[in-house]
């Protein structure tokens, strides 16, 4: 929530600039990393099951 709020605050001043694009991409990648970190044990198990049963 904090990250998304910060990003939104950023977008008020630098909306649709190159900096905003970079910040948005970084935020998405960061959130993806956070999600995958939590899901990793299950994801690895599922990948192992599905790709190398």
């Amino acid at each position: 929530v904090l990250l998304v709020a910060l990003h939104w605050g950023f977008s008020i001043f630098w909306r649709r600039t190159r900096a905003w694009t970079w910040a948005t991409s970084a935020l998405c990648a960061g959130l993806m990393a956070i999600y995958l970190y939590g899901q990793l044990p299950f994801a690895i198990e599922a990948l192992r099951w599905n790709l190398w049963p």
Partner: protein
Amino acid sequence: MMLGLLWMLLANAACLLGAHEIWLRCRTGQAAADGALFLLLRFALASGAVLAAGLAGALTGAALGIAGAAALGALLLAGAHRRVRLPSLRALRERVPMPLLILAGAFLVRLLLQVWVLSPHVGDAICYHLPKVAEWIQQGRITAETGVDYRSPFPGGFELFEIWWSVFLHHDLLIEAAGVETWLMAFAAVLALARWAGLPHAAAFLAALLFGAIPVMLMQAVGTLNDLPVAAIFLAGTALVVARAHPAILLLAVGTGLGVKPTFGFALPGLLVLAWLVRREPAPPRPGRACAAGLALLAVGLGSYWYVRNAALYGNPIHPGGRSGFVLPNGKVVQQVGPSLLTLKENLRRTIDSRVYDFHLGYNPTCEMGANWGPAVFALGLPALLPALRGNRRFRILTFAMAVSLLAVYSLVLSDRWFTRFALFVPAILCIAAADLAARIRAVNLLAAAALGLQFVNTLAGDRMSVDDYSAIYRQPWRERRAPMLGTGFPEREPAIASLQGGGLFIYLLYGPGFDRRVVYIRESEPEAVVAAMRRQGVAVVYGSREANAVLKRGVERGILKQDVGNFFSLPEWKEPSPTPSPSGRP
């Protein structure tokens, strides 16, 4: 089987052509919303046909096939086939990039393959949804019997559509196709909503694909559960509201949804708010009175049947719920009745604090301890929401309506391990926002592709079944394909098995994939009465459960029953029949 296949083809051709004829008279003129409308009409017509046949005592493939052939003949004579215009693939190719089309095709092909190789295996479905399907197909009519699970009297609108996919072959081989059709309905509805919100064709298609690829959507599509159908019908209703469809069409969505699950009704406030907010949008031409009246009648029939039935059978339309909620015999409240601010607060807190991260359990179709929205919704949808809200009025309207629905649902459902599955329409908004962002930023597009790939692979096997369980299903010949939950040593050759009242039983599996084993339901609580009922019904084996086993074990102590493998108990004199020798002499 070949005759069943013929009946299935005839009935489906009649249903599709009939839905098309109605569609021509009430479509909105907005392509994607009309796609969702066509699938909704098809769902309602097939469900209505099964309901009518079931109540008339003609729930057989032959009866439905002959009726379908007659309807098809009448439609062909009326020239209905000449009015069919298939959607243009060339137009789609011009509007949507090829990689997106290939990706969507891969998801659809994967689901269709799963329809073939999977067999019903999700706990809730095989405990209390599907026993109705098996029992009614076996009996050739809709009876008062729904099984002995406490939840079995719940509305069974989706089960009607599952019967449509099973009755012709008298087999559950294609039963998952019912869920895949609702997956397509959800896809079309999100596409329509994204287009309405102003997204270009390619971005709207990505939004629909992101929604269709949500882990819980993929798993429910082939999981024979009814939460995806509820979400699909709700989103189709939302798309039809913004397309300003005629009230009779909206009533059809509401009736169909309420017949599938009462939670659909919980989300209705948002739909009403949306209808008010878009009241000044231009409306399409109105359908004729006869068409509108027919749709309204179908809606009322599909929506009210289950509640009227429960009122007649149990004196309470929302049975097994009551004034104190849905309470199990042991006093545990498993569902509340009426809104609660405390529940709303808990559900919101848990969604934000833990469920969206999906870190408690692997993906599973019942959303146990996780929203199962996947990385695309979480990592792309959440940051995309605020920019989309800021710059797009229509998106704000949609989000507001969905938020009202979310708050209504969350205030009405108990904060249990599975509550997020009652609001599966919510991630649609996040998918539209994510696709809007991806259309502007290339890196987001790449992340979306990565997330879609992960979701594709990680949803092939759920955490509740091991890969060995899946392999066990896949390896069986299609005629005998059955999930392995009954365990080894299950009395395969017994022609009839009794089942005792109590939750957590995989009763559906007792029927067998071809619905050829008789299942006798016993609602006694004393072992002597159970045994007397078994003897009266000519059944020697009874299937218990964690709860029912206490009764059956008392019977074992008293020497009137013996325990066999797992949850199976039998009369003392019973011996498992020896296998019939095959003509070749091999076992």
